[in-house]
């Protein structure tokens, strides 16, 4: 005799007091998915605005100073941390968009274009209002590991034998046209500024972080040809890891 399957199921439901999950459970789940998607887009956009900011402040015109070909220079100076963040958020956004109720219907290319498009456009807007710079500054203040990463990356500009050093101005001896500079490795440099140019009217002050192009002399003596703020746009901004 064939068994009554519907009766069996109903009995099991009643016996085990199985109840349908509430509508709110699914509404909440849908909203969480959309929220994570939206948050990933916003964070990805912020990362992109920071990438644009770094692109803008990079010393593109000085790549020949570090004795690398342009491609190597680009790879060494691009903000790798933020590019990884951007890709990570794009991946999370992709995953969550695919997990919205109808997300599976979208073709891969469409989802990628939509995700990247949204992040890039929003990132462009954030960059244009200065959010990239602010966000990066805030992040630098709050995340100690980030300053280590940034200092590592800025190490490309610490090549005295190739004519470039960076560091913090410890003392200025205007009458002798010298300044004393501590680099991130705690080496103190005496920099001759008697015949140097200053980037866009940059004015030296004790405590400023600077980048010096020139020629290494005997020992820790360095003859400056051009002085720029360490981060072009920021001018005298301090990097906490290098502060006293």
């Amino acid at each position: 005799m064939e068994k009554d399957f519907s009766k069996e199921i109903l009995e099991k439901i009643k016996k085990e007091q199985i109840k349908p999950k509430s509508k709110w459970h699914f509404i909440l789940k849908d909203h969480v998915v959309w929220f994570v998607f939206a948050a990933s887009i916003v964070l990805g956009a912020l990362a992109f605005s920071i990438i644009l900011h770094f692109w803008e402040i990079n010393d593109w015109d000085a790549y020949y100073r570090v004795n690398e070909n342009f491609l190597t220079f680009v790879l060494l100076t691009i903000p790798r941390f933020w590019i990884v963040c951007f890709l990570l958020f794009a991946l999370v956004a992709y995953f969550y968009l695919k997990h919205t109720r109808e997300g599976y219907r979208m073709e891969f290319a469409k989802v990628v274009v939509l995700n990247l498009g949204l992040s890039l456009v929003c990132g462009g807007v954030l960059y244009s209002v200065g959010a990239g710079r602010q966000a990066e500054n805030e992040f630098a203040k709050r995340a100690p590991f980030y300053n280590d990463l940034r200092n590592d990356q800025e190490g490309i500009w610490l090549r005295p034998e190739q004519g470039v050093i960076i560091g913090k101005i410890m003392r200025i001896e205007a009458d002798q046209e010298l300044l004393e500079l501590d680099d991130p490795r705690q080496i103190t440099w005496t920099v001759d500024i008697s015949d140097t140019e200053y980037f866009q009217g940059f004015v030296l002050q004790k405590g400023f972080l600077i980048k010096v192009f020139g020629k290494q002399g005997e020992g820790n003596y360095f003859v400056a040809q051009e002085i720029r703020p360490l981060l072009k746009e920021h001018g005298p901004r301090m990097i906490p890891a290098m502060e006293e």
Partner: protein
Amino acid sequence: MRNDSLTDLCVSKTDEELVAMALEDQDYFAYIVTRYEKKLLSYIIRISGLSREDAEDVLQEVFIKIYVNLNSFDDKLKFSSWAYRITHNEAINNYRKKKSRPQCAMDLDDEFLNNLASDMQTDGHIDIQYLKDNVRKVLEVMEPKYREVLVLRFWEDKDYGEISDILKKPMGTVATLLSRAKSSFRKEIEKQNIKL
């Protein structure tokens, strides 16, 4: 089960109406079970190759899942697509749990073979018995993802949109999958020297 007049009433109801009724009163869920048990049981056997007894165990889990998730049913979908999706996932979970490759224990029917043969553009003179004997061999060695899509298209007679909703893949992917499944089917036919 309720009385005959109520049963007649439920027969005339759409799936969506029955879902709404089952949410109000669980007894109505029995009508959904009755409506889909045969289709879904066959589908489980076709894609997983389980014995009828094991397939019924899976089917029981499927209906419990359908019941528990009734409130998530989105009426932009066909109820049958949603039910097939849950069934498909449960069948896959089942053979993942057992860590076994799904077997092909198909009871090949004439309609399936005719659908398949006509889509494969054979010369029109098909020996159904010959096909039955050989198609099973071919399906047995095919990758499960290809077999699943062939089953949905030619056996369950689902269109691309429904297959997309069941497998949760974009329509373009379904088309690609189906085309590759057919191509893989043809290659296997050649390899086994089967004449269609």
